[in-house]
């Protein structure tokens, strides 16, 4: 149980008659960077709010760091950078961190030791005594990130952490996330930027209509899946169903006679070529391209039925 940072079973949230999240069932390992992907309105925000006990689930169970959801013990070990970060802007950066450190019940000596380091980490060491009202959006997000790391957390929730940041800021977030992974801290990352997720996450969950459709490991994904574009002379109607034995997402690509399909393993390519020739097809084109997370996202989110990951 305790090697799981997050474990949820059938978390559900209804607002009035509307179901925002129908079934959130997932587990995040300790020390893993976990991406949470889905289209707008999929229930991502409500899911995160439930995990942070900002919102109470209508049904289901969950534990955070082995503690029951909503308990103070669970919250003691987490850090959180909200998407809509708004802080007490009349505080200086150092005062702001000190306040949140006190709310984490950190001792004064601990706070004075940690705060300068965190300010330096997020590149705001020279702004310790500047009030937050003078901060830019990017600076606010960075001080928010420092706030999420105050208590040396074992699980950090980052909700769209790079949305307001310039490339340097994004790089900083990525470095922080990598640093957390090295320290064995789990990160729950909600982001629209699939390229960011691809660079930082160990696993990702795809969520749509308030339910987890599929969870994939990015390491396996990067090694395995390839998208293949192929073109044959005089394709028969039976060709498409037959190709399904090799891979998934088989479809005509526009009117140019090309077919797209996704192979789980690159090693299937020679078999596919051999089979096409054996079947008497004239093969004009067979182009493998590594599948991007965006391709996979569109494949999974586009699926009408739920797939067990």
């Amino acid at each position, binding site marked *: 149980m305790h090697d799981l940072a997050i474990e949820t079973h059938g978390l559900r949230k209804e607002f009035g008659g509307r179901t925002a999240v129908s079934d959130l069932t997932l587990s995040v390992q300790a020390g893993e960077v976990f991406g949470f992907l889905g289209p707008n309105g999929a229930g991502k925000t409500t899911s995160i*709010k439930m995990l*942070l*006990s*900002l*919102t*109470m689930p209508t049904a289901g169970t969950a534990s955070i760091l082995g503690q029951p959801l909503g308990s*103070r*013990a669970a*919250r*003691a070990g*987490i850090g*959180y950078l*909200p998407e*809509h*970060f*708004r*802080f*007490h802007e*009349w*505080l200086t950066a150092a005062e702001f961190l000190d*306040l*949140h450190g*006190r*709310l*984490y*019940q950190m001792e004064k000596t601990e706070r004075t030791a940690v705060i300068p380091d965190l300010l330096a980490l997020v590149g705001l060491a020279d702004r310790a005594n500047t009030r937050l009202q003078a901060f830019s959006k990017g600076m606010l997000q960075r001080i*928010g990130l420092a*706030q999420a790391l105050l208590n040396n957390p074992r699980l950090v929730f980052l909700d769209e952490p790079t949305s307001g940041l310039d490339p340097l800021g994004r790089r900083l977030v990525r470095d922080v996330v990598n640093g957390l992974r090295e320290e064995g801290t789990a990160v729950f990352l909600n982001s629209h930027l699939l390229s960011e997720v691809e660079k930082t996450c160990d696993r990702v969950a795809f969520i749509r209509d308030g339910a987890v459709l599929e969870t994939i490991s990015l390491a396996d994904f990067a090694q395995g899946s390839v998208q293949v574009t192929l073109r044959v002379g005089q394709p028969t109607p039976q060709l498409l169903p037959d190709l399904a034995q090799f891979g998934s997402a088989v479809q005509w690509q526009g009117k140019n006679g090309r077919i797209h399909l996704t192979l789980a393993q690159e090693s299937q390519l020679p078999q596919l070529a051999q089979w096409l020739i054996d079947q008497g097809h004239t093969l004009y084109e067979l182009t493998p391209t590594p599948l991007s997370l965006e391709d996979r996202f569109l494949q999974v989110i586009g699926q009408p039925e739920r797939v067990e990951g």
Partner: protein
Amino acid sequence: MTTLIIAQLTIRETQRRRILWIVVLLALGFLGLYALGFHYIYAGLQENLPASENRNLFVGALVTMGLYVTNFLIALMTVLMSAASVSGEIESHTADTLVTKPIRRWELILGKWLGFSILLLGYILLLPGGVILISIWQSGLPVANVLPGLSLILLQGLILLSLSLAGGTRLSTLANGAMAFMIYGIAFLGSWTEQIGALFENQTAVNIGIVTSLIMPSEALWKKALALFQPGFASSPVMAGPLAVTSQPSDLMIGYAVAYMVALLALALWSFSRRDL
């Protein structure tokens, strides 16, 4: 502990946003003006009215007016400073990073309540307290029951504070402020109905006043406080005119007001603990 941190934060916010200093500065201005006015009026009275009984009537009227205005300002400021405190932090999501800390949500509301209560106490000591001090200093005439009277003004403020914090857990800032002022206004009107009813011995009007005082006891507390400060003057409609306390709220009403305030505060703590953010 968390409660104290938030109380401190609440007071610091009024300092940093310069609310505290503006209030203190203007209060000092108000008191200066009151002292000046009192001084010249009293000097004139001593010249023109040799009989001290007649002078006392005017002094009573001056003190009553001063207390009436400052009491009203206290009620107004209590709602103004607290109406946005909870709803604003919910709307702006400032609350999100606070309640996800290992704290109990109700501690956040109790901390705000405590912080505002301390400010409220300061304002009361400064404004109605200042009016009383100036009156005694200028005229040498005592004001009766100073501590019990100021305590009732404080209780009135605490009721409005608890109402506005409770409302803030569910209503938008504007709706909350409007709600608090409207309820205060109803109590105001009900209390006047009661006083005028008592003057003309109309029991129905008195009962209407008592019922509104049960709905919102703020104005009953002010009437009781005034009756304590100025026992002779305030109880006489001939002398005190519309401000007279002909139907004095009972001690039971004070007990009810304490229970009412505690219930509102409990509602605020419970409501914020239960809501989705």
